[in-house]
């Protein structure tokens, strides 16, 4: 590593050659504002179009100001990050952006968290001098995502995320000049594109041009209806992130406060998706062992590896891109949908009410879950198993609307029986967690022995693609893990080519898994926040008295009383699903 000398804001600094001015400034605590630049360092994702010019700095001896995010330092460089010239130029740049931007801040979903708004405030802009024509586009409403492209500032972060991190390619910059925006092919609605609804474009968008469909109103209406029994379930990743919305440290575990807040809001039963995660493991683990057994016996109809199917972004992705492999993923429904099926088929009977009188709400770190719960195969006569999927951010919104002082809430427990879960259910929220949970159970079912240690450290970590071999008492089981759909594609392509010998592969669409889901509090590119949530998930797991799904007493009772056996007849009917070919086919006319 070659070090060079530069001077930045009158401070002599030793800098690594080839680094950008922006990185060096940030390292020494000089905050150069940015807008189009976006980085998720933990997963090597960078958007650096150098286009917005908000980050310009003055370099002595150069006639033009230079964008700090795209300019590398050279020996002897003298840089001013906030000279009068820079401040004026930056101001003009932001004023120009604002001149083609709707002033919707009062009612914008991003208000208070919008990077453009923050920037305008930071630069003290009080009016917009260049009032001119504004470009207008139609709003695109999909089941999960709203694109309000009038607000687009062409930073192209979403395009980079969708193309590089997800390799979905739903979005691209189109047109030129004043007309330029990011859009889908032929400017069709998102529903007609290969979008997976992972929502990572929302997480990356600095403004309110992309947002999730807000369903808090419908949920409040359901709660206010005395005829409805409203049941809520909370996904594992929510409890390690929700606190951030209320000023708590990233990585704070707020399970008990969350349960208390949900009760205060007025939900009739506060249950846990983690319970359904344990149920998923029973079904998926059994399916895995069954496939391995039949495969070793030479049954040609069974496919290995089994792919996890709890991430709806991932499910959408393989339906679009791997139509030839639809029999490879596990048929087990996701925990959200298993919960819905249990609530509307079992809990309704216990309460003696009809499924129409029960409303199931889920709190999810995820945008794709909004799409998942609206899929036709998860409805009975038009009535969905899960009525509404709110994001972590929407729950925070509800907490604020109900004037609940979250940080000082007394901790409470979930209701029973659908609120009891194990450590295995908790780790569903992080990359590697689903397969570790499955391994804990599959090992004991396969070997008939008790695990000495339940922690499978070899399956953990945040690298994009990981693999490990777990010894099932003499039988080696090969496991692959990917987070991010580009990484998943890489693994799947080698499976398709017959170049791997995996027994099982876990995929999650979001960086770090659901903890980095698009419905979580905005991290604005700070990957440390995701790392802290990751650690918190495994702390929560370690603190649980029971850490294997099959030891969850309420799960055992559910099978005994109602379901019978894992992968039995009732399970197949209620807890398993099938997949569809959503790829584009060019047909010959005539």
């Amino acid at each position, binding site marked *: 590593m070659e070090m060079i000398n530069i001077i930045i804001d009158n401070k002599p600094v030793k800098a690594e050659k080839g680094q950008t001015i922006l990185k060096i400034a940030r390292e020494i605590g000089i905050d150069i504002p940015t807008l189009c630049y976006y980085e998720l360092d933990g997963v090597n994702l960078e958007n650096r179009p150098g286009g917005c010019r908000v980050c310009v700095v003055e370099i002595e001896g150069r006639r033009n100001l230079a964008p700090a995010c795209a300019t590398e330092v050279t020996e002897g460089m003298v840089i001013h990050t906030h000279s009068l010239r820079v401040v004026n130029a930056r101001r003009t740049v932001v004023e120009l952006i604002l001149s083609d931007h709707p002033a919707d801040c009062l009612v914008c979903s991003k208000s208070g968290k919008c990077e453009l708004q923050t920037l305008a405030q930071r630069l003290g802009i009080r009016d917009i001098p260049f009032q001119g024509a504004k470009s207008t586009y139609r709003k695109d409403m999909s089941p999960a995502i709203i694109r309000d492209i009038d607000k687009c500032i062409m930073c192209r972060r979403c395009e980079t995320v969708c*193309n590089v991190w997800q390799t*979905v*390619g*739903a*979005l*691209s*910059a*189109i*047109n*030129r000049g004043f007309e330029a925006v990011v*859009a*889908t*092919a*032929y*400017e069709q609605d998102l529903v*007609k*594109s*290969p979008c997976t609804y992972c929502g990572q474009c929302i997480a990356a968008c600095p403004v309110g041009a992309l947002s999730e469909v807000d369903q808090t109103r419908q949920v409040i209406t359901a709660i206010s209806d005395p005829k409805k029994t409203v049941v809520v379930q909370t996904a594992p990743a929510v409890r390690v992130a929700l606190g951030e919305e209320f000023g708590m440290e990233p990585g704070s575990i707020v399970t008990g406060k969350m349960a208390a807040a949900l009760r205060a809001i007025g939900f009739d039963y506060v249950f846990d998706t983690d319970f359904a995660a344990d149920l998923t493991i029973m079904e998926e683990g059994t399916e895995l062992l069954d496939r391995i057994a039949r495969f070793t016996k030479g049954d040609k109809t069974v496919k290995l590896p089994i792919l996890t199917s709890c991430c709806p972004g991932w499910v959408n992705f393989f339906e679009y891109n791997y*139509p030839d492999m639809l029999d490879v993923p596990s048929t087990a429904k996701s925990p959200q949908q298993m919960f819905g099926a249990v609530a509307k088929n079992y809990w309704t009977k216990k309460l003696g009410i009809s499924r129409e009188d029960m409303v199931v709400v889920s709190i999810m770190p995820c945008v794709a879950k909004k799409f998942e719960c609206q899929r036709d195969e998860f409805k009975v006569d038009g009535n969905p198993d899960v009525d509404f999927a709110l994001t972590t951010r929407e729950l925070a919104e509800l907490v604020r609307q109900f004037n609940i002082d979250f940080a000082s809430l007394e901790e409470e427990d979930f209701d029973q029986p659908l609120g009891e879960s194990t450590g295995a259910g908790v780790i569903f929220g992080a990359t590697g967690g689903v397969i570790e949970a499955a391994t804990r159970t599959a090992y004991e079912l396969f070997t008939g022995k008790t695990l000495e240690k339940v922690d499978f450290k070899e399956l953990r970590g945040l690298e994009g693609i990981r693999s490990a071999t777990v010894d099932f008492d003499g039988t080696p089981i090969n496991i692959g893990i990917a987070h991010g759909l580009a990484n998943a594609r890489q693994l799947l392509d080698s499976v398709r080519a017959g170049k791997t010998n995996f027994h099982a592969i876990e995929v999650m669409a979001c960086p770090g898994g659901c903890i980095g889901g698009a419905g979580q509090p905005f991290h604005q590119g700070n990957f440390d926040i995701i790392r802290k949530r990751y650690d918190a998930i495994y702390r929560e797991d370690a603190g649980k008295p029971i850490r294997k799904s099959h030891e969850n007493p309420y799960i055992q009772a559910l099978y005994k009383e109602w379901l019978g056996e894992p992968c039995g007849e009732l399970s197949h009917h209620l807890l398993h699903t099938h997949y*569809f*070919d*959503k*790829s*584009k*086919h*060019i*047909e*010959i*006319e*005539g």
Partner: protein
Amino acid sequence: MAKLKLSEDKINKIKEICASFGNKPSEAINVLHKVQGEFGYLPAEVQEVIAQEIHVSAAHLYGIVTFYSFFTMTPKGEHPISVCMGTACYVRGAEKVLDEFKRELKIAVGETTPDGKFSLNCLRCVGACGLAPVVLIGDKVYGRLTPDGVKDIINEYRS
């Protein structure tokens, strides 16, 4: 599964062109150029086939098609009208002439009339500056045009 319809001949022709450029993503512009030369325009179905063949997303390809004004997604009319917007023509009132064409045909630049008769486009200097403002209809050149003359010219082709 979403279905798109295209004749076998067309599909084969597109595939042939893509293959002649090695099915490379980096050749997108050249492929589009050649295909448009073949079919006259680039409808969505055609772009879908190209996208699949050269391994780029349909959105990316559409981004290229909309970035360069040379590419068009609508078929040219029976009588393609091109208004020169070069400097000489522009200062001599080409814009007013263009506006008159738009009004008379009820279409915008880049569009084709519903009956398929006329399409409207702009060009840069066609090298006949002495005749500015200049309009081409098919291969025929019309010079020193005023907005008032537009209607008559269109009527020549209407019958």
